[in-house]
């Protein structure tokens, strides 16, 4: 079973990489880009039947730093 874990910075946390991308797009002449945020996509292959609670623990213990990041799990 595949899991896709999206890790994103919490709203309000400055994202310098996102800002750089926003400025670079403006520099290329793309008008109307009003914001850019950079996150991570982590794909995991896990045993069938891996429970939500285990996945949640993986995210909280290692994959996301919940001081600054949110995460969202997609089962594919």
């Amino acid at each position, binding site marked *: 079973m595949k899991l896709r874990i999206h890790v994103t910075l919490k709203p309000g*946390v*400055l994202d*310098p*990489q996102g800002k*750089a991308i926003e400025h670079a797009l403006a520099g290329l002449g793309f008008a109307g880009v009003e914001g850019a945020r950079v996150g991570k996509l982590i794909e995991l292959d896990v045993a069938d039947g891996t429970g939500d609670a285990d996945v949640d623990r993986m995210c909280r*213990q*290692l*994959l996301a*730093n919940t*001081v*600054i990041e949110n995460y969202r799990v997609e089962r594919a």
Partner: protein
Amino acid sequence: MKTAVIVFPGSNCDRDIAVALEQVTGTAPAMVWHRETALPDGVGLVAVPGGFSYGDYLRAGAMAARSPIMAAVAAAAGEGRPVLGVCNGFQVLTEAGLLPGALMRNAGLNFVCRDVALTVENADSAFTRLYRAGERVHFPVAHHDGNYVADGETLDRLEGEGRVAFRYAEPLNGSARDIAGVLNDGGNVLGMMPHPERKIEAAHGGDDGRRMFEGLMALVGA
């Protein structure tokens, strides 16, 4: 004083801090591999070194913070023993929950590698007792992820409790309130981005860092 340096895969400053500790204490520190589950007996100071453990993959310090030895480091911290995290070591200590906040990519996206001026904010801790409050010192920095963040309430608490140990004299990396180093609530765990171990002798361009180790040594017994 018996000291220990934690050794993680990929770190490149463990030897720097080992050399500094040996110079100041006269005894080589124990180099403790991250897979160990206990610190050697009688260790008075634990150093978590700088230098890109695990290649900074996932997040700087994240994987090192979950390695087996960190439970022993947390226990030592809980007993009031001094734990010093420098640069990546600071990132490891925040990721391990031993210090509040987190360290993010520098606001300017540049890797900063130079000497910086710092203000000593708290001269009462085990680490800063040989400095004077308000004193200006110079340490080198070399980091990409030194932008200290915490919520406003945490920052207010850190300031109110005198737990900001060092502040950048000028903005450097976007750090909240120019914080360069913070203490835990017991004052025995310090995390800082600048490298005191690289300012031990005149050949380094100064010895501002030496007093940190001398102060620790005198406190916990030579």
